[in-house]
């Protein structure tokens, strides 16, 4: 009967260790990181330039 109190914590530890190794993809963080990079590449920071609607105004004759 006493053995189960040793086995149970061990089993719980093993189970949660499995979860720890299998780290999932941080989707929310990835989205935030993507937005940050896109802002910098496209120069579309909303806070800095509110009126930057036309990055390349093309002359049409």
């Amino acid at each position, binding site marked *: 009967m006493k053995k189960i109190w040793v086995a*149970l914590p061990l089993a719980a530890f093993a189970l949660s260790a499995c979860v720890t190794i299998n780290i999932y993809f941080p989707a929310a*963080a990835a989205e935030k*990181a993507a937005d940050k990079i*896109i802002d910098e590449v496209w120069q579309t920071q909303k806070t800095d330039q509110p009126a930057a609607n036309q990055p390349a105004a093309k002359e049409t004759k």
Partner: protein
Amino acid sequence: MNVILKLLVATVALTAALNVFAAADLEVNTPGVNAIKQSMQARHAQLAGHYNSGAVGLTADGLIALRDAGAVPLAQRQAVNALVAAENNDRNALYAEIANANGHPEWQAEIRSTFAQRWIQRAQPGWWVQSGGAWKQK
């Protein structure tokens, strides 16, 4: 018996906390990522006009493509093709670099699809984006 129960709860809580901590953030501030970002930023000045004219569009797999060659004067076509190829090289490198910088090369596909959605969602009105295999103007 109570002690063992407490130990069990503490063990599970500790490993769960570790798990959350490990997955909380994505590092994108590395020299490799910054170099690619700067290269893409410089190229965007040349590409923006082609996005506006519809010659170049954003694809569903996080890249760009020459959508309407007719919108580009013949003399410029080769230059635009080179621009598109260089941009796609940078984008592929960017997705791989972010995955590697975070120690998870296997995340590359998910990073690419996250970027693909964000590029398309944030494209400016008038730009062409790929959606469900077809081109659509925003």
